[in-house]
């Protein structure tokens, strides 16, 4: 067996409250396509960022052709032979294809600071020829389709061949997540072509694709490699079990606190809701019911939530709240109708870090603590003290900047922001436990149970299926922008996550 081109040994990266990589080890051999799969939070993105020098690991070694390297950035990673095709793409939109391919390493196309356009196009064409692409190097990048730009990125990554001796390792980060079916076929043909001159690491959460394209598959969970499998010897169901794993028992999710709500009136009724990312979505949520929305990236489930809160535009559909027509317009009108939203990106969308706990808490319902335009400091203080006590928020004082608290306490403040509204009718939770440690997660679960018991309808998006199934009464499964099925998840008869996972992919 040939020596590995790339090997990773015991890679560890800790963030406050979360261990993203926990002694991860794997290797890539020449001309091999290695698949990496894992749920959100399994450590995929941190791993990739470490491999191109965007994240400095706390411990562990990265070896390229046997030599330990300490990567300082994308350009440096390229100079040792590791290139990455980024999921969010890394081309400058207003430049030509040729300029993008050669950006930062123009070689003979620029002499003494002067551009030689003909040489530039020739050099770029050589790269495009490597992958057999017929894209015009003179075209402006923002006139291309996503799939075409991805090909340009592959061509750009291959420029590192000229800078190294030996063959490069190409990392493909979720390359299929926004491609159409025929585009995926083109990409897979491209990967086959690519392996003749490079090693490929294919990262995805779509199991069927990983099995189809990879020679070997590593399964990641909680920052570790939990299994190395041979795609020809396993099927998707085996992988599902490896992927999900088993965490703690029922008390973690406060299962006993789940209340029946069959007789409750329908709180939210969504009919044929459409946005840029979802089509004709229909479902209902009863008062006191927790409904999970499952789906992979690109399934459109985030779109549904954001459209309901008025944060993105919807292009059609009818929504009623307690049988009253509910106009999807702006977050402000949603809040006025008794709808709350806990966003997934807590630090950027959920809190205003330099402002105090008190200000962050009363933000959405300032009317509660004001007389006319004047803030009643005493009333605000009373309200904030009440909620800090009730939710057990650990903060030195209500005036502490919320950015200095732990993630779990920040999230409690965000939840309290909506709970102070007595008339809260619907709470949309977009990955409410992302980045929280186990204890904080459990606290958030308890709060969700309390809210439901008090009659609030809850719409839940979750990183893990296990969490979603445990908390929900029902799970609506979405795929490619549409609802494909609904799975009942009643207390005491929770289905196996695999049942839902198979509908998702």
């Amino acid at each position, binding site marked *: 067996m040939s020596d590995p081109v790339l090997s990773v040994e015991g890679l560890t990266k800790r963030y406050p409250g979360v261990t993203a990589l926990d002694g991860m080890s794997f290797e890539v051999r020449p001309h091999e396509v290695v698949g990496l799969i894992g749920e959100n939070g399994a450590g995929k993105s941190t791993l990739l960022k470490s491999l191109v020098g965007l994240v400095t690991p706390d411990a562990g070694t990265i070896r390229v052709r046997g030599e330990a390297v300490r990567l300082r950035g994308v350009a440096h990673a390229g100079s040792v032979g590791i290139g990455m095709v980024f999921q969010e793409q890394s081309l400058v939109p207003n430049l030509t294809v040729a300029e993008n391919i050669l950006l930062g390493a123009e070689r003979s196309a620029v002499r003494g600071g002067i551009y030689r356009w003909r040489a530039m196009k020739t050099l770029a064409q050589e790269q495009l020829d490597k992958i057999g692409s017929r894209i015009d190097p003179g075209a402006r990048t923002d006139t291309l389709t996503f799939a*075409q730009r991805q090909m340009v990125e592959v061509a750009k990554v291959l420029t590192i061949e000229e800078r190294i001796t030996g063959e490069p390792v190409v990392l493909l980060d979720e390359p299929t997540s926004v491609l159409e079916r025929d585009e995926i076929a083109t990409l897979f043909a491209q990967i086959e072509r690519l392996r003749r001159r490079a090693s490929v690491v294919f990262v995805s959460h779509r199991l069927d694709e990983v099995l189809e394209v990879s020679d070997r598959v590593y399964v990641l969970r909680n920052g570790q490699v939990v299994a190395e499998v041979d795609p020809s010897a396993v099927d998707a169901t085996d992988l599902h079990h490896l992927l999900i794993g088993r965490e703690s028992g029922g008390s973690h999710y406060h299962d006993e606190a789940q209340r029946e709500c069959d007789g409750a009136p329908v709180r939210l009724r969504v009919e044929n809701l459409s946005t840029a990312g979802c089509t004709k979505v229909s479902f209902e949520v009863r008062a006191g019911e927790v409904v999970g929305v499952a789906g992979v990236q690109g399934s459109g489930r985030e779109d549904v939530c954001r459209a309901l809160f008025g944060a993105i535009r919807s292009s059609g559909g009818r929504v009623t709240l307690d049988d009253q027509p509910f106009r999807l317009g702006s977050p402000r009108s949603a809040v006025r109708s008794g709808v709350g939203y806990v966003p997934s990106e807590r630090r950027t969308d959920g809190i205003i870090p330099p402002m105090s706990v008190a200000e962050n808490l009363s933000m959405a319902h300032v009317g509660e603590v004001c007389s006319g335009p004047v803030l009643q400091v005493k009333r605000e203080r009373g309200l904030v003290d009440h909620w800090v006590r009730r939710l057990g928020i650990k903060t030195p004082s209500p005036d502490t900047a919320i950015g200095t608290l732990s993630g779990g306490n920040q999230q409690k403040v965000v939840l309290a922001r909506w709970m102070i509204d007595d008339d809260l009718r619907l709470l949309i939770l977009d990955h409410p436990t992302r980045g929280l440690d186990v204890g904080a997660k459990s606290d958030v679960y308890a709060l969700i149970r309390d809210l439901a018991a008090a009659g609030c309808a809850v719409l839940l998006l979750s990183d893990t299926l296990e969490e979603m199934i445990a908390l929900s009464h029902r799970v609506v499964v979405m795929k490619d922008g549409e609802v494909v099925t609904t799975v009942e998840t009643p207390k005491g008869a929770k289905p196996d996550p695999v049942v839902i996972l198979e509908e998702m992919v």
Partner: protein
Amino acid sequence: MSSPDTAQPRAADAAGPAPPLGPGPAASGGRLVWRPRGTDAVQTTASLAALVLMILVFSVLDAQFRSWDNVVAVVDAAAVLAVVTVGLTFVLLLGAIDLSVEGVIGACALTVALLVANSRTGLDLGVLGVAATVALGAAFGLLSGVLSTRLRIPSFLTTLGVYAIGLGVATILFSGERPIVEDPWLGDWASSRFLGFTIVSWVAAGAILVGWLIQRYTRVGRYAYAIGGAEDIARLSGVPVARYKTAAFAVAGAFYGLGAVMATSQLGSGVVQAGSGLNFSAIAAAVIGGTLLVGGRGGVLQSMIGVLVLTVLQNGLILAGVSPYAQQAVQGVIVVVAVAAATWPVRHRLGVVK
């Protein structure tokens, strides 16, 4: 154009949920929708159409407007603004802003007046004096660039500081006595004509050409587009962003220096306020032409359309007998309308405006 790699070039629109016309949100679940296509091109076409329309209207209204003499007058009046706008365009391409124009021009105007034959100093450096002045402008630009990139202060503030420094230097050089330009060669720039146009206009034409060459054929120019288009991606690709940002500011400063020389020739003496009003006009001209403040869009030639729009407008309004005070207000209204029109297609993406 390109030949698509995949089945159909606009697969995004053919299948599934069609995004609203034009630009969509950068990432909203389903398909990623790229940045708006050719917003700047639309803007440039619109301003070109506005320019033609304006010329037609003024020509019908006023026989004097369509005379050859008036064409020459418009071009001569546009010369200094054109050169300054060429420079400013490089800073705007970065996505930065330059508010130092009037200060730099003030300092350079006094410098050139004192270096060529003049009423105050015994110097008579002629063309060398002009070159030194352009170099001084570049030095001011370098200062703005270094302050912005090394101290990581927004260009809005650093260039405001450099503006004050420039005016201060100009006032010190002025020292209470205006230097009259006695160099016949520099005096000729504004007075002698070649093929009907003043030398100043020819210098401006040359400067525009040089600006376009820099934009099209040099690293400074191309990297300005890359940095303005996506600075983080440029950095990830190994582009030394700080160095090329600084270089773009220096190039801009050199053009301001040349603009100061031209203005001084027209004024006949070194004046601290030689650049008065030019900063606003130059930003307005660039934006009207399609060099948007977001960076990476437009270019030297597009900005020149904006320069003509502003100059023709001013000329037409004067001929129509509109008061100069009202003209400034009209110019302001036009800038606001032009910017609103330029950003119209992406309005729903502008969640937070500061």
